[in-house]
């Protein structure tokens, strides 16, 4: 039997052609500004299953502030945010706030359930799919997090790791926000309106 040492010089610089052919985002985190109330679009509704097998519809959270987090077990920056989200769930739940995690693990619950147990995740996890990510404009990078107000509108979006205080400030702001008046005018206190106007 001939032995041929075929030196497949697999220089990854060459394979970069393969890597670059896939969509990238730059290394900087996209920091979203809180949208003015009038500029917020409705968060697309979806139905996904949670770890118990129950079907969960996003619209069932209407009336609550929701932190909708697309993540995966293999995502290091995602894992960094999880303890913060666990604290937020505990701290703000009584005021009408919830974290909803959407796992993008291709291996499904066999991969996700052990992770949930290991990290003691105290908020609801749903198993996502590409149809849902397409509803949200395509989720190319993880984590991607949408802040949804009580009226079911997207108030902020974060692509990549965001700061804990940034999330906390946004949650607080959305929990404190007053309902809009019937005329559609923002009824927030004047200071809040001035901040919104400068953005």
């Amino acid at each position, binding site marked *: *039997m*001939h*032995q*041929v*040492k*075929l*030196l*497949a*010089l*697999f*220089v*990854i*610089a060459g*394979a*970069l052609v*393969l*890597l*670059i052919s*896939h969509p*990238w*985002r730059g*290394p*900087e*985190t996209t920091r979203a500004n809180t949208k003015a109330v009038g500029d917020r679009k409705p968060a697309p509704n979806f139905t996904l299953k949670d770890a118990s097998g129950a079907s969960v519809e996003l619209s069932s959270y209407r009336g609550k502030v929701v932190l909708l987090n697309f993540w*995966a*077990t*293999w*995502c*290091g*920056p*995602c*894992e*960094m945010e999880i303890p913060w989200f666990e604290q937020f769930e505990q701290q703000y739940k009584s005021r009408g706030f919830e974290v909803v995690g959407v796992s*993008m693990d*291709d291996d499904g619950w066999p*991969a996700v359930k052990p*992770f949930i147990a290991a990290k003691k995740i105290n908020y609801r996890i749903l198993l996502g799919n590409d149809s849902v990510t397409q509803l949200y404009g395509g989720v*190319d*990078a*993880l*984590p991607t997090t949408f802040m949804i107000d009580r009226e079911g509108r997207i108030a902020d979006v974060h*692509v*990549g*790791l965001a700061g804990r205080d940034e999330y906390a400030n946004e949650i607080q702001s959305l929990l404190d926000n007053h309902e809009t008046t019937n005329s559609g005018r923002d009824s927030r206190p004047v200071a809040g309106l001035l901040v919104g106007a400068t953005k």
Partner: protein
Amino acid sequence: MPPGLHVNSDKPKDEFIIPLKLTWSDGLLVTKTVTYPKAEEIKVGSQDLTVFTGNFTIETQFEVPAKAASGSGTVTGKLRYQACNNQMCFRPVTADVHIPVVIE
């Protein structure tokens, strides 16, 4: 790899991390060994990772079956990888690999 980006190594420390993996379809040639380079150790947050960055080489040793016909052909394989930077991660990818060979 572009600056700032890394792929997980072939032997990640965490069971949840997706490793780099190069596999070849047996047919024209038989795969003997696939050798990955030495990984770098980095820390992202509290996570200890073994990764590859920049230019690196994965070496494969093939064997030609005794009854293989002479001539040219293509060895095909798949490269599975998952890349991140310090702020975000990208979906795992399985890319097709094709290498032309000549058997004499």
